[in-house]
């Protein structure tokens, strides 16, 4: 049982690290995209305000929630390996 706990904890820590990194990365990509959009639309208004608005819209959207797949997919993979290893 201790082995299981250790597996869970280490897995959770690693996935959380990956989640954090990915979330920063995707936010940065979104920010870059928004900056380009602002320029393409003819640089109307304040750039920072435009970008912040876009970031807020991104946070409200469904897309950041997709990042939870970082936790869900490995869980599915684990279940699949467990099944194949022991019951097939």
């Amino acid at each position, binding site marked *: 049982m201790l082995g299981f706990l250790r597996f869970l904890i280490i897995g959770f820590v690693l996935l959380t690290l990956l989640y954090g*990194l990915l979330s920063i990365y995707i936010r940065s990509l979104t920010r870059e995209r928004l900056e380009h959009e602002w320029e393409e639309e003819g640089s109307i208004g304040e750039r920072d305000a435009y970008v912040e608005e876009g970031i807020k819209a991104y946070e409200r959207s469904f897309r950041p929630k997709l990042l939870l797949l970082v936790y869900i997919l490995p869980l599915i993979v684990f279940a699949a390996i467990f099944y194949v*290893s022991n019951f097939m």
Partner: protein
Amino acid sequence: MRYVKWTLIALILLFIGSFLHYTLPQHDIVRVVNTYEERQDLSGWTTMFWQGTDNGSTTGNATRDVQFIQAVRPNGKSIVYRNEDTGWGWPPYFKFDTANLYTEANDAISTKDNPEWISVTHYGWRSQLLSIFPNAVGIKQVSGPDARIIPWANIIILTLLFVFIVTLYRMWQQFRQRTIDPLVEDVEDVLEAADEKKDSAIDKIKGWFKR
């Protein structure tokens, strides 16, 4: 210096390569001839080629009984597998069905005259010198000694690994481009400003002596 660098890179690649080669699943087509169980005294550095004792499935002794599966390859060479639970430990095969696998292996025993070809999925290396054995993970009956097995697991794992490394690299590039470079530019601006100040100060001092 260049040789040192390339030797180091080659060593790292070699290490990663052997790690993957040891850990990823492989398939052997063999004929199972016998199984046995033997007391093993696990000490010294080769212990790492045996199952760890704290994986939630094996318990704590440095000496324990280990099951083995003896087999013969189509070319007549012999190969021996160990049969141990990986449990929750490394590598993550989550194998708990050692006893069942032992039974299946016994069921698959066949003679030279009437061979039954079996694909043994395993990881690890066999070394006579070090007395280490690959760990059998699963067995499956196949049509013949040259049945074709597509290593789907390896294809998927290596692809995912590649995607993961590329993503990490892209992340690092993005971080550098958007966080480090602007910082460096700021510092350069400051240095430039300081440089100009210094120049003007020097001019000033020179100015004193001009007359």
